[in-house]
């Protein structure tokens, strides 16, 4: 994003290419000219710089990137057979050949941890993206339209929020048989409501602002005001809330695995590994529980710390405003 984009007119001109969601996401983090553009560097870049000043946040980001690399790049370097079962080497303790031992089917536990990380991280980040986009649209439309539609849409949000997430997804998962895509959609279906409520609140405050009125005077349509003015301005809070959706949906996915509604074997997730590990730790097979537990807790803590860091940056902006 270059500096001159902060001038009001060039930016308006650039808008004519259409307000796709991708474009909003890419340009989303900058603040409209009415709020005053800072000198030197885009707002987004400044915020990233502020974020990286916080050592805890950097540590959190390093852990997240590390675990992503471990899960997705790891199997390319460390080859294991994760589909067969090997009865002669089940439940072996860690050794030179199996750094983290083997599972009850004789599969390599380290490779299993990588495989489980893939589905857990995919669900966490995937749900966050889907639930964020849907909740953001829902909230923006409700807040912007107002009136009866707003009340109705928000009562639906209230109702869905009142249903405890696990009860809801256990029931949905038992009506439709679980596979990774469906589990993913089911968790997303239960995770978008708080985002919608948050975005609606922001939009209610934003739509009274002068630049929105100005834009309307210029003849802008509703969908354009939502996409170009409201959504870019709520991106800060959205990113914060989205981060916490990542953490919550990884936990929900693990809870589903514990209830027997996880991914069907030989696929696995950290939650499935934990469930097996909890059973087998009573047999003394500690290596089947603790590595997965550490991985899950690490990613949860890291995501929460990054979320807190992003919130600090976003709120600093709010205070300055």
């Amino acid at each position, binding site marked *: 994003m270059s500096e001159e984009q902060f001038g009001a007119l060039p930016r308006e001109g650039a808008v004519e290419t259409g307000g796709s969601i991708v474009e909003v996401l890419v340009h989303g983090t900058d603040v409209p000219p009415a709020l005053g553009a800072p000198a030197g560097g885009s707002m987004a870049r400044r915020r990233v710089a502020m974020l990286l000043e916080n050592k805890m946040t950097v540590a959190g980001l390093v852990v997240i990137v590390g675990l992503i690399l471990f899960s997705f790049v790891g199997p390319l370097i460390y080859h294991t057979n994760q589909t067969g079962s090997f009865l002669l080497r089940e439940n072996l303790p860690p050794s030179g050949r199996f750094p983290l031992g083997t599972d009850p089917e004789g599969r390599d536990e380290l490779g299993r941890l990588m495989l489980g990380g893939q589905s857990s991280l995919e669900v966490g980040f995937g749900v966050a993206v889907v639930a964020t986009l849907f909740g953001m649209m829902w909230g923006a439309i409700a807040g912007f339209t107002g009136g009866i539609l707003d009340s109705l849409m928000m009562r639906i949000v209230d109702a869905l929020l009142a*249903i405890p997430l*696990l*009860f809801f997804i*256990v029931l949905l998962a038992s009506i439709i048989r679980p596979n990774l895509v469906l589990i993913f959609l089911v968790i997303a279906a239960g995770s978008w409501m708080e985002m919608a409520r948050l975005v609606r609140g922001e939009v209610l405050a934003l739509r009274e602002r002068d630049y929105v009125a100005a834009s309307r005077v210029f003849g802008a349509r509703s969908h354009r005001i939502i996409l170009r003015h409201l959504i870019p301005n709520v991106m800060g809070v959205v990113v914060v809330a989205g981060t916490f959706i990542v953490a919550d949906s990884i936990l929900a996915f*693990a809870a589903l695995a514990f*209830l027997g509604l996880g991914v069907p074997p030989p696929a696995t997730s950290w939650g499935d590994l*934990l469930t097996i590990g909890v059973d087998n730790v*009573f047999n003394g097979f500690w290596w089947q529980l603790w590595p997965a537990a550490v991985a899950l807790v690490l990613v949860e*803590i890291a995501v929460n710390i990054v979320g807190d860091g992003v919130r600090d940056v976003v709120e600093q902006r709010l205070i300055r405003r």
Partner: protein
Amino acid sequence: MIAYILRRLLHAVFVVFIVSIVVFGLLHALPGGLARAQLGLGAKRLQVHELEVQEGLLKPLPVQYVIWAWHALRGHLGFSYKLNSPVGALLVRYLPRTLLLVGSSTLFALGVAVPLGLYQGLRRNRVDDHLISVSMLVFYAMPDFLLGSIAIILLNLDLPVFPSTATAFGLNLRADVLVLILPVLTLFLGSVAYFSRYMRSSVIDNLLEDYVRTAYAKGQTTRGVLYRHVFRNSLLSVMTLIGLSLPYVFSGALIIETLFNFPGIGLLFYDADLTRDFPVLLGVLLVVTVTVVLGSLLADFGYALLDPRIRLFEEKA
């Protein structure tokens, strides 16, 4: 105040209405239809048809909804063929135990989290604040079943003090208290982390407010400022969190009851899920949700009583 209460009541009724539509919709989203789901795959077509006629499943959906809602309102939530009991009777037996579990863990959690958060807020960014934050984050980051399993490993296997299963709940008081300790502890640890985090940031926010500076300027003692301004205002925002936390606590109860075999509504739900006992599943879902709505209604009323802005001026909610 009365207008506020009426408005909140109306809101709650409307939310329950929407929930009932969602639950009813799920009931009819069952593959192959409700009668087939209850009779199983081996049922003859004629039997399925008979049950459909008997249960009124051939009527138009809106008519069925009205009939179902009318029955639900009077406490008739259907009949569990798997457990051979009316769903209502099952709920009356199981719900109070879950309320005991959820209620006691939330109360203990508040009792610990509020002072803890206050302490952390006052010691912001010191070493002990960071230590507490990180250890709370560890509890917050763990799935409930892992936390519970660790509690079993430490307190039941290594130190055989507390029982890890609760099948015989309701026999005598002393045994029941012992049985409750591990499940309550597990739910408690998760909630403490949730509440204390919020209390801490709320205290920090309040400490920066102008009225705190004014109070100091008036010559009020530190203790007076902390109690009258910081503590009471922060407590108020934690109050709102109780209502919001209820759905999560019930979700946690589903896991904890399954793990400890505690015969509450969560275990009832889990077992019904395994046996595909749909009347029980939907009855529990409806009742849990109504409980959550009532709980947040109570939390809101408590908030309104404590907050003079609502009590005196009937501000718009």
